[in-house]
């Protein structure tokens, strides 16, 4: 999930003196948009720590052209909802979303933003999709940066295809399985 291997819409014809490319306008726009996502971080809770680590040089979000944060919704086109949204915050989030200019995308970072998580009570909004449409859900409490980049690549893929149906990041293989395998074969698991 998340890797970009769809059919390319750009072809380069060789043979002439300089070469030229043909493409469709929407494909060109999609290509340009998916590599220039300006993000608006709506960071409310503990998932923020993982968000900061994701934007650090170690994980290097600049590879995806999505590293520029804009703290004005009017200048951004990707809304990162990172953390728990309470009922009291819901009007603020909706207003931020409405202030953003089209085209705009929304990414739910973590289980709380996706469905409310274990906050199953009177004070928490059970998923931001109850008030704003959401493009990509990244489950995890919090999700690892790898899962977030899976989600970002999934979103880029959807932008390139012009697809607005919601997508969800599938869980990767559990590395705990390796330890269990070692236990079965009798080899000692690393301490």
């Amino acid at each position: 999930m998340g890797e970009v291997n769809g059919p390319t819409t750009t072809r380069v014809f060789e043979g002439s003196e300089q070469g030229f490319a043909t493409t469709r306008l929407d494909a060109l726009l999609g290509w340009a948009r998916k590599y220039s996502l300006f993000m608006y971080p709506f960071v409310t809770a503990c998932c923020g720590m993982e968000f900061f680590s994701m934007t650090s040089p170690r994980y290097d979000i600049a590879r995806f052209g999505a590293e520029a944060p804009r703290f004005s919704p009017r200048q951004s086109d990707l809304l990162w909802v990172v953390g728990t949204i309470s009922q009291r915050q819901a009007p603020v989030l909706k207003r931020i979303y409405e202030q953003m200019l089209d085209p705009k995308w929304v990414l739910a970072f973590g289980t709380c933003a996706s469905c409310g998580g274990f906050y199953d009570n009177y004070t928490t909004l059970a998923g931001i999709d109850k008030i704003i449409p959401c493009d990509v859900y990244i489950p995890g409490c919090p999700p690892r940066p790898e899962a977030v980049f899976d989600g970002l690549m999934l979103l880029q893929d959807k932008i390139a295809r012009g697809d607005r149906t919601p997508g969800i990041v599938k869980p990767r293989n559990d590395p705990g399985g390796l330890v269990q395998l070692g236990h079965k074969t009798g080899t000692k698991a690393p301490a």
Partner: protein
Amino acid sequence: MSQKLLDILKAQFGSDILETKSEHGDDTAVVLPGSWLKIARFLRDDSRCDMQMMVDLCGVDYPSREPRFEVVMHLHSINLRHRLRLKTRVGDAEGDGAELDSVVSVWSGANWFERETFDMMGVVFVGHPDLRRILMYPEFVGHPLRKDYPADKAQPLVPFREGYEKLPPFDRFEGMSFGRQVFRSGKAD
């Protein structure tokens, strides 16, 4: 250690003290709600008590009891190094008439604690300078930490969207279910 603190209270206020308890090094006095402010002021000003610090104030809901709510205040003396837990009981079985004198005039730090207790439990503090909700929004109806408030009953400020479906593995029953247990009245607390 400060059993003598309870003795001072009993000697001073007599029948205003409903019961006292001293266990695990903690001293507790349950007092009449009418003398709440009077006792608080005495505990701060008397040189043998000298409670400069109000540590905590909160409410507890015992739905099968009458009076229903217990307001608990924890006091601490920095100079004399002793503590006291002061309780009182207010409110009828429906939760109405839960009124208590505010102690903001004694410890101004009690201001937000009383607002929180009012917000969560619905105990009205008479004489509080600014008794508004502090955690929930003003549009919220009811008091969410009362045992008869359904824990998952949300009161949204913006209307929810319709016509969308949750993707698996999320669904509307995602999450932990302990919030959906319905309180049955008459059950022992």
